[in-house]
């Protein structure tokens, strides 16, 4: 378990991180969401030891993270960068060797990973000749080639086409499935929503919301329900404590003022006709995001 506790960082008078505390659990994908300048990159850099914080600790399984631990971290910086004049395979092999792999081992890993990421045809090309999307894939290979226990990825999906997003998402899920702790930031809220198990929302340098995705959604649900029935649901308008948001014959979306009201509506709907579906409607991530950052 990677634990960030009370991370604080100021640049002069400006406080960019204030008591940032959250966990990144092994085997799970943790999405890190926030606007520009919210403090995502600063937080990640402190975790990687690339930047020093003013206060707070980063621990791995209870012990303060050392530079030896960090060698088992995979990192994808916000500002992408590889040597432009190195060949793709050679570059990834070099990074694997810096992380301690032998020559042959490093090469077979790099080759397999690059093929997984769809760069199998470009192994001998210089990084600078790759398209932006392919450079991005190479960058992801750089973060993954040493089989890290902890993955810290700053905007891994930016600049990728939808197909590449799928490829990268699959690779990340694969890593989490074998037990890695994965923290990634993204502006693409729909991708985060679909992928992540846990969520951390940051704004203005403070954590505004964190927890399992489904729990967060439930916590921010406003007792909004969706009813699909065979009959005319027009009667809903007259129910006490109900506010109809959307309506079309047997279809209705409404807010209830309490759980009892919702249950009463369900009983009446069943009495009126066949109910095809009755379900609480969870807010989308972007709704939660807008709500908590205010």
């Amino acid at each position, binding site marked *: 378990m990677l634990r960030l506790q009370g991370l604080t960082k100021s640049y002069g008078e400006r406080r960019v991180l204030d008591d940032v505390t959250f966990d990144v659990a092994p085997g799970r994908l943790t999405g890190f969401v926030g606007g520009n300048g919210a403090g995502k990159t600063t937080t990640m850099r402190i975790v990687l030891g690339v930047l020093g914080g003013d206060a707070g600790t980063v621990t791995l399984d209870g012990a303060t993270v050392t530079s030896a631990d960090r060698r088992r971290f995979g990192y994808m910086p916000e500002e992408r960068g590889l040597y432009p004049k190195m060949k793709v395979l050679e570059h990834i092999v070099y990074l694997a060797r810096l*992380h301690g792999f032998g020559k042959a081992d490093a090469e077979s890993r790099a080759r397999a990973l690059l093929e997984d990421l769809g760069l199998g045809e470009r192994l001998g090309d210089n990084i600078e000749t790759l398209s932006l999307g392919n450079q991005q894939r190479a960058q992801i290979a750089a973060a993954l080639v040493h089989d890290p226990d902890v993955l810290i990825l700053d905007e891994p999906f930016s600049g990728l086409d939808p197909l590449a997003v799928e490829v990268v998402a699959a690779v990340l899920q694969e890593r989490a499935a074998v037990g890695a702790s994965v923290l990634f930031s993204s502006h693409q809220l729909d991708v985060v929503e679909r992928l992540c198990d846990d969520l951390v929302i940051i704004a203005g340098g403070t954590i505004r919301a964190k927890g399992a995705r489904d729990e967060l959604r439930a916590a921010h649900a406003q007792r909004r329900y969706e009813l699909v029935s065979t009959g005319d649901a027009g009667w809903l308008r007259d129910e006490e404590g109900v506010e109809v948001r959307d309506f079309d014959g047997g279809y209705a979306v409404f807010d209830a003022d309490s759980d009892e009201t919702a249950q009463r509506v369900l009983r009446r709907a069943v009495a009126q006709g066949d109910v095809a579906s009755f379900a609480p409607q969870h807010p989308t991530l972007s709704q939660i995001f807008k709500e908590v950052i205010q």
Partner: protein
Amino acid sequence: MNATPTAGPTTAGPTTAQSVWLVAEREIGSKLRSKAFIISFAILFVGALALVLWGGLTAQNTSGTPVAVTSDAQQYVADVPGVDVTDAASDAEARELVSAGEVDAAIVGDSASPTGFTVVAESSPPTNLLLSLSQLPTVELLDPDAGSDALGFVAAIGFGVVFLMAASLFGGTIAQSVVEEKQTRVVELLISAIPVRSLLAGKVIGNTILAMGEILILVAIAVVGLTVTGQSELLQGLGAPIAWFAVFFFFGFVLLATLFAAAASMVSRQEDIGSTTTPLTMLIMAPYFLVIFFYENPVVLGIMSYVPFSAPVGMPMRMFLGEAQWWEPLLSLAILIATCLGAIIVAAKIYENSLLRMGARVKLSEALSR
């Protein structure tokens, strides 16, 4: 804590030596594949070859050194090779021939000299002549301040140019490669894998190996060139200074390379390199100009041969001119090595503090603090 899909690396990661060597290896590999590097080396190579050949031809007219010899000194030059003897009736006539420039030197009998004769020359004794005499005679100069010795000048240019070219070429190279890593941000990946100091050491070592390789090739050119043009006597005179030059160059280069890396780490863009490396470039240029203007001035050369930045040029030059005592290169080398160690400590600090500070140039005081 987790099951990894395949066996992980050794838990401790690579040893320091391994990571340093990996970085050095990459530096060397990437330079050897760079066209700019190969072309600039080819130019240096051809230049050195031309200098050796031209120097050889001007210094030694193949017919031999014209020398006026009085009758009482004939015995001393009878079996000396490479001299073109003109008989002189008297001591005075021999001196006149020297003054008139008809001969390069006169050899006259002199009972006060331990060798029994004295070499009289206009401003400096012909080096080849002295080298080919079996015993070092007394030398008398008629006009010590005038004229110049072509060979000394060539040697001065040779040491100066080689040091200037190699140091600025590789100093610039290492500066660029430090900034490239900062600018492309690959440095964030590198130092999340290995310690900052290993990165610095690897870069300096890689470039030093390349520079030394270049120097050794140039030395080989000098040796082969001098042998082929039939100047093996000159080679005997130049051999020791050249060997010392290589030793001095090694430490001088490490000193400069470390400082270049530190200076470059303070900026974030290639365009800004000049703002922090210019003082270092001056340090490289200075010995070149000083040795060319003052190669005949023992005081300036003496100082140069002890100042760490100019010692690689100054000391071999003094040895070539025969001005240095046997212990002088050793003392100067000790000073150079001590400076080198000090510079490595300071530079490593600057490098560590500046490497991740993107954007504006890092102030020297900030780079040195903490």
